[in-house]
């Protein structure tokens, strides 16, 4: 980035060092997905020998000038400043991978897309005029070309390592696009929807968590967003048959991936009523 060139600190790479460079960027988010990178405790120091961690302010003061071979982007775009910043990040990145539901679908903060953001601001801040925010929270792909989207709220550690390995090997990440339902069957869990009548988004939710919630006797609540082919309206019908009020059906589709098109379409359809 401009301005970084003057910064000389320890940890800067030697000119002959050809390790690919990694940058980690944060937009509107909770930090949980970049924390997942630091949660790779056993791999972190080994990773640091394979890639040059060139920009990761949460982990280090050292800054290496771009461009970067791989940028991981956490968070959604919610301010005019960030809408500009993501363009610069893209210009500086050979490969750009979004990590998590905020960057990939707009996150929980995209609930503003279904409401009046001016009213939201006035509800939270005494001086709404000090706050500069956009009326929507949008995924990174609404602003720039994205090379790969890693799902999850938060992302899965194993999938993140696969994305990094794929980038090092210059190949596409091998990430399954099936549903949580398939993962759950493979894990041998009894179906919470069929056996207990517990509402579960497993049939329409993208795999990646390993069917965690049903393993804890709870229905899937959609952290990984819509699977590639979904039939959300069919699932809604089943939830209504189980006795769930329409308002609650709207709510289950309006969480961390509320603005992902299949979920947004279904929640809007349910809100309109039968």
């Amino acid at each position, binding site marked *: 980035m401009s301005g970084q060139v003057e910064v000389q600190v320890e940890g800067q790479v030697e000119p002959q060092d050809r390790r690919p460079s990694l940058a980690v960027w944060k*937009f509107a988010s909770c930090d949980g997905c970049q924390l997942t990178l630091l949660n790779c405790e056993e791999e972190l120091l080994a990773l640091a020998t394979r890639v040059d961690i060139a920009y990761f302010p949460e982990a280090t003061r050292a800054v290496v000038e771009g461009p970067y071979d791989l940028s991981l982007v956490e968070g959604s775009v919610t301010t005019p400043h960030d809408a500009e910043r993501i363009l610069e990040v893209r210009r500086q990145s050979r490969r750009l991978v979004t990590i998590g539901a905020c960057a990939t679908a707009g996150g929980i903060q995209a609930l503003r897309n279904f409401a009046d953001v001016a009213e939201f601001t006035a509800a*939270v801040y005494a001086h709404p005029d000090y706050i500069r925010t956009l009326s929507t929270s949008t995924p990174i792909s609404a602003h720039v070309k994205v090379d790969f989207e890693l799902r999850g709220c938060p992302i899965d550690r194993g999938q993140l390592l696969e994305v990094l390995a794929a980038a090092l090997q210059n190949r596409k990440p091998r990430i399954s696009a099936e549903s949580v339902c398939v993962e759950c069957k493979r894990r041998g869990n009894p179906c919470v929807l069929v056996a207990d009548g517990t509402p579960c988004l497993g049939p329409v939710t993208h795999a990646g968590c390993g069917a965690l919630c049903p393993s804890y006797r709870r229905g899937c609540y959609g952290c990984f967003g819509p699977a590639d082919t979904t039939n959300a309206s069919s699932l809604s019908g089943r939830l209504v048959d189980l006795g769930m009020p329409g308002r609650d059906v709207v709510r289950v589709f309006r969480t961390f991936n509320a603005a992902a098109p299949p979920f947004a379409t279904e929640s809007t359809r349910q809100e309109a009523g039968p």
Partner: protein
Amino acid sequence: MSHRRDGWMDGLADGDVEALELRAATLARVEGEGGMRVLVRDGQVSDVRLDIYEPPRFFEALLRGRAATEAPDITSRICGICPVAYQMSACLAVEDACGVEIPEHIRLLRRLLYCGEWLESHALHVYLLHAPDFLGYPGAIEMARDHRDAVNRGLRLKQAGNAVLATIGGRAVHPVNVRVGGFHRLPRTGELRELRAVVATALDDALATVEMAAGFDYPDFEQPYEYVSLRHERDYPIEAGSFVTSSGEAFPVAGFPDRVTEEHVEHSNALHARMGGGTYVVGPLARYSLNADRLTPLARQAADRAQLGPTCRNPFRSIVVRAVELVVAAEEALRILDGWAPEGPAAVPVPPRAGTGHGATEAPRGALYHRYELAPDGTIVQAAIVPPTSQNLASIEADLRGFVQPRIGLDAEELTRQCEQAIRNYDPCISCATHFLTLTVETDDTVGPG
């Protein structure tokens, strides 16, 4: 782009007035997005501010109209570093609104889960974020070249915390097993047996951490803080307690909004909290100073060896207190694991009713308060959340003022680095601090003491 590091300082020539600006446009090794600016004119610190440009996410607004049972999962997304703190304070507030008390085995399991978060978060801060300041490195990865064993110890501790979170909560970030009333399922005996071995190692590592931190060099700097923390009848405060202050006040969690006001200042998307109109501090230093008599046995011994005394007012020594709290978390986790004999269900019913509930727990960074007003069917009508970092922001700025003034003659780059270290004393979580509701709306330029 304004989102950059311009270098560690810019010297300003302003006519013939000597002026110096210390600036870090992007604060490194903190959670979230913020910058720092300290302005010195005519040999006096004239302006100090933490710029919080982390974008607002409006949690209190988006919680309205949601079911109270959704509050733990939604508010955990405020912070990926301390999601359990949000889940626990949310559960307590909703249970309070509905007039439900949880049984002891659920309280203990919550405390165990929370110990996992303390281990994870404190190990992250002590080793990856703060220790590099004391040892002179830009980050832990660079530090590992010379201090491999220490960094490995930190990573092992962090991993142990994550193991507790994953076993009890399902995963390390945004655990899935927590619900209003308790848990979706209780842990299995075999799972806990494996966990015990990991936590036993963590206790040794935590004790070694106190020894390491006690050996660092600390600037000579003390502040007359007003400390605020929870206090529990028997235990070191983590998942339960009522408020106490260093000026001798004691009040229930429900009394928090009467005493604390939040001020919206122009340079910040986070509100600044004040108690009775004054600044105060929450977090490890406050907890320790107000609960030194509640430390677990090995933690007490470790604190004595580190010569912490009954209170600590040097913010740079917060790293030692955090290390002592790592010992508390490991000892408490072991105590709960060894005594685990659950009698009762994974969760108790929490039938909805109209009312207002308050909940506060000790997040790694300090007291985290939630309040929910519920409709008869359990729908959230109003929500208020006061995270620890917003309570500390005014003190961080005051520390910078007090710290820089006698050190103006130092090399500006070095002084800027020390200022960043002073900010990291608080382990500020800017992601947390950026979303909450005013408890009292200010009028004109004054904020009522509440």
